[in-house]
């Protein structure tokens, strides 16, 4: 499952994980640059240190 981190302060504290509320269009938030996939937490366990 893809997890996201906050990029824009209009969403919350930048760097914090973002958990979408019911009905929120996550793709639009990514397209607008408000959130970004959290690559760190999306790595397979074998790639994590």
């Amino acid at each position, binding site marked *: 499952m893809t997890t996201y981190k906050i990029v824009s302060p209009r969403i919350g504290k930048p760097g914090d994980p973002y958990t979408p509320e019911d*009905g*929120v*269009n996550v793709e*639009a938030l990514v397209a607008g640059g*408000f959130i970004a996939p959290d690559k760190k937490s999306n790595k397979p366990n074998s790639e994590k240190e």
Partner: protein
Amino acid sequence: MATTTYLSNPVVTVNSVDLTDQATSATLTVRYDALESTAFGDTAHKFTAGLGNHELTVDLYMSYAASETYATLAALVGTTTTVKVKPASGANSATNPEMTLTGTYLEALPVMNAAMGTLATISLTFKGGVYSVATS
């Protein structure tokens, strides 16, 4: 006569993005289709509530800068989202209820509304969705 005054300064959130500082007007109308239930013996029309048909209209300043109006809305047109309004900033309470439309549809987005010597503004209407109120 007792009255209360209310300085309009609502919080407006569209798809989780706080656009309060770009908003100048917000009107959330809660509406249910009126289904006629008048029957023989009645002497006046009677109605009962049908499907919810709620609507939020917001006026916003247009901005094409990062994390502003256009960036928020460009990918939302033609899709559904969640919008929230509440009378003032601060915690939700009985006197500061947060109203939410979940799964509301943005049919149209004016991507340009420019006139010489004025700030660009747009008016949006979010249609439908499930209405709820949070007081805590």
